[in-house]
């Protein structure tokens, strides 16, 4: 991972005030944060913890009360930084009277792209988000998932170096969630930096390299996901091609005790509901009309994080 700092905040503070300048709420307090190139960074926290405020400050939608927010080495209020940023708002509030093609054309124009480039980008992105069939329908007729897809397409129209995603999986079905997560991982593969905020912890755990956990405007925890979640005093072993038996258990117990440990769990691992659901969908697609049967030799689902 390169150590280029893309986003840096120094004692970033935001206080909301009413018209008379009286303090209403301290939404963010002295946040220090660095996001490096090529990582997927997650902002976590309950509602009202300052995740969205942070993102809006970084985008220049809000101005800081104190401290600094630097993006690509420039103050976040600079318009220029937007050339290299893609932003997917929590709900894709796009113009509902435009269709998908017109929407992407419009945002392409905002990047001052010439017509040929706009057309080409729009075509690629519509394909990528799987909206070819619906590209002539106006957005008013789109479902939530479709809107999230076109929203993502508009965020990527400029092939940005950094993508900011506000609750990217909210309102998506498991298929859409999985698609979104794969896409986020794909963005990292392309060398892009991703900043996302979410309160769906499983999603964050699946994709993020590093997370910051906010509570009530204060930074509570910051670090690598793997390190934060690693349970250092436990060892996990998984194997295939075995069947459960008392002998096996006994041998394992002996082996572990020989090393001074103690066996805690012995049995079949459970898969996640997400994996089960995705398998069912996959199976049903492959064999239409047949009821889903669990595989005889349950393989662990392919790991999402690709590690």
């Amino acid at each position, binding site marked *: 991972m390169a150590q280029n700092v893309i986003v840096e905040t120094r004692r970033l503070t935001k206080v909301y005030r009413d018209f008379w300048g009286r303090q209403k709420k301290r939404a963010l307090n002295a946040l220090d944060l660095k996001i490096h190139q090529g990582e997927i960074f997650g902002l976590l926290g309950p509602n009202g913890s300052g995740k969205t405020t942070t993102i809006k400050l970084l985008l220049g939608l809000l101005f800081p009360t104190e401290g600094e927010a630097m993006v690509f080495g420039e103050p976040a209020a600079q*318009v220029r930084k937007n050339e290299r940023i893609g932003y997917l708002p929590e709900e894709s509030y796009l113009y509902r009277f435009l269709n998908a093609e017109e929407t992407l054309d419009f945002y392409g124009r905002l990047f001052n792209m010439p017509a040929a480039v706009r057309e080409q980008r729009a075509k690629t992105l519509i394909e990528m988000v799987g909206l070819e069939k619906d590209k002539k329908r106006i957005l008013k007729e789109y479902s939530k998932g479709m809107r999230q897809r076109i929203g993502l397409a508009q965020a990527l129209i400029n092939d940005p170096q950094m993508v900011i995603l506000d609750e990217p999986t909210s309102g998506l079905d498991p298929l859409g969630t999985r698609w979104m997560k794969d896409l986020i991982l794909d963005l990292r593969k392309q060398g892009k930096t991703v900043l996302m905020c979410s309160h769906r912890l499983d999603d964050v755990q699946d994709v993020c390299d590093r997370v910051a956990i906010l509570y009530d405007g204060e930074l509570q925890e910051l670090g690598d996901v793997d390190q934060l979640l690693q349970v250092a005093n436990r060892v996990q072993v998984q194997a295939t091609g075995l069947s459960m038996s008392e002998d096996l258990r006994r041998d394992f117990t002996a082996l572990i005790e020989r090393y001074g440990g103690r066996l805690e769990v012995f049995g079949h691992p459970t898969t996640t509901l997400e994996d089960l659901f995705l398998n069912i969908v996959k199976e049903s697609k492959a064999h239409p009309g047949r009821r889903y049967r669990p595989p005889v030799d349950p393989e662990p689902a392919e790991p999402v994080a690709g590690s």
Partner: protein
Amino acid sequence: MLALGRVINDFFPNADPMMFATLVLERDPLRWLDVPAGVMKWIQDAGGFAAFGILMYGLSRLLPGRVRTPSSASVFQRTLAILSLVVMVLSYGAYLVLLAPALFADFRSMVLGRPSSPIALATRFNVDLLLTAGGAAALVVVLLPIFFDMFRWRFRRIWAIARVSFKEAIRRKILWVFSALILLFMFASWFTPYKPEDQVRNYVQLVFTVMTLLLLPTAALLAAFSIPNDLKSQAVHTIVTKPVERFEIVLGRFIGYMMLLTLVLAVMTGTSLLYVFREITEEAKQTSMRARVPVFGRLVFQDDRNRTFKGVSVGREWEYRNYIYGGANSTNRAAYIYTDLPPDLAARPLARIPCEFSFDIFRTLSLKSEQGKGVLCSFFFQTWQWESQQRPAYDQARAEALRASSGGDARAQIERLTQQIVGRKPTDAEIQAFVADKAPDALQWLIDDLLAEKFGFYHVPSKVIIDYMTQSVDIPSGLFKNALAGNPPPGPEGETAPRFGVLLKCDSGGQYLGFAKYDFYLLAADGNFALNFLMGAVGLWLRLAILVGLCLVLSTYLSGIISFLVGMCIYLGGFCQEFISDLATGKAVGGGPLESLVRLMNKSSLTVNLQESPGVRLALSTDKIYSWVMRRLLNMIPDTDRLDWSNYVSEGFRIGPTDLLPINALMVVAYLIPCFVLGYYLIKWREIASS
């Protein structure tokens, strides 16, 4: 000839075909001459607002915990801004210092009741110059960031936003509003008075009124709700996180809506024009569908015994016209004088230049014998070279020419007469014009033209004037040859002396004739009515531009409905501008609000001088401050009244494409610039995401 015209012609066999067209202009239209002074005033006023804004900004920076606004100024830009700021502070500071003694004296006189002795520390000129310098510097400070931002504006982005605004309006089916126009076309003729004399006026006024009523509120609604809606739906979040300069949004919206409204206006104007053409009878078309190019003069009144004679007021409430008393012994005269004349008037060989007029009659004598009779008016057209002692010579030359004119063919006649009267050979064009002139009085006209060229005089005795009618007399183009030859010596104070004028005298004893500045004009040419109709629509377009700009700018800070209401209020304030301006300049009879209150309490009449007392002095001084504030408010109100050109169209006067149109367009730009500057800062400093 029109029906009523026929009736009148039965009474007055010598009268002309009748028209009712009268251009009533209570305010002088803007001229190019007014532009430099206007620009100066604009710099002072707009600069004053800018300075106020800077002051407010500075104060707000002092408050703790205010939102820090983004700035991207380079060192160069900062230096420039600071320099201008210094100039501004110095200029306004010097202004205040110079003015302070006078203010202090005013204050002292207010408190102590002693009359203030005028202190001549500050000459008017210096003070004005300081105000202009301060205003200009303040404008530079305010405009600098915009100027440097401008390099980052991209047409493609602005155009994208304009296109989206356009599409939005169309896909939301807003244009259906305008189908109301169809109703007008279907049923309006049921309710429109069918008198040929009034047809053009009625129909033109009708379609313009309906277009205005349909377009203005729609434009205001479109503009006022667009940005607030984007903010509410958060659609703006995905836009400002693109490399879009915030002001590009306002500009794009403005262009988009103006495109849409232009299109709608064009279609409406086209159909309205067809409608007007279809509904108007052939008779009315011929007499009223015109686009006259008038040349107006300056109106002065004279009286032998009273040097400051400004005409008689006959006690009418509408003080548009002033009157002269008629009769053989009356020395009252009215005169329209011209310092400038279009040179092409002199270039037309032997032409009859029509002078049109519509004077008002005020009768004090209504004997049986006088009823149904017109009032007589004599016209004396004269140039700067004419002197009244020449009259006998003129009469003699005329008599000789008439005697000598008989015999020979036309060519010989014109050659002989031209030689005899002006001592030159006629030009080919003159010969052709004379040969082609088959009118029975052609010969007499030739003589009058030549005499006018020589003496600079022409006379129309005892013309019958009819109330509310536009009448016409022809004058020979020779007059203008005489008027434009050489240069008149300047007046006693170095002012340009008039070249040409017409002296008017009322011949009917006991009656008054009333004149206003725009009651008389030389008809220089006739333009195209349809084209003029389009020009009238351009006036409406300019008003739309003001309203859209205003509402858009307000909506960068206020919510949709509030922007709409405030925008409409400011816009409609333009209609009461005259009243507000009277209040602001202290012309209103009875004084400002406090003075009026004092009058109410004391039950004193509006015109009586108030008795000196501390209370009254306080009231008067407060009214002064009040009127100062009102003057500032007045600056914020667009002068939309000036942009209503429908009366030009309906009365058949051309809307000058080289004066009226560009000057007023300039005025609109002058109004919109400060407006947009305000919008620039409001949207730039707005925290888009804070609810």
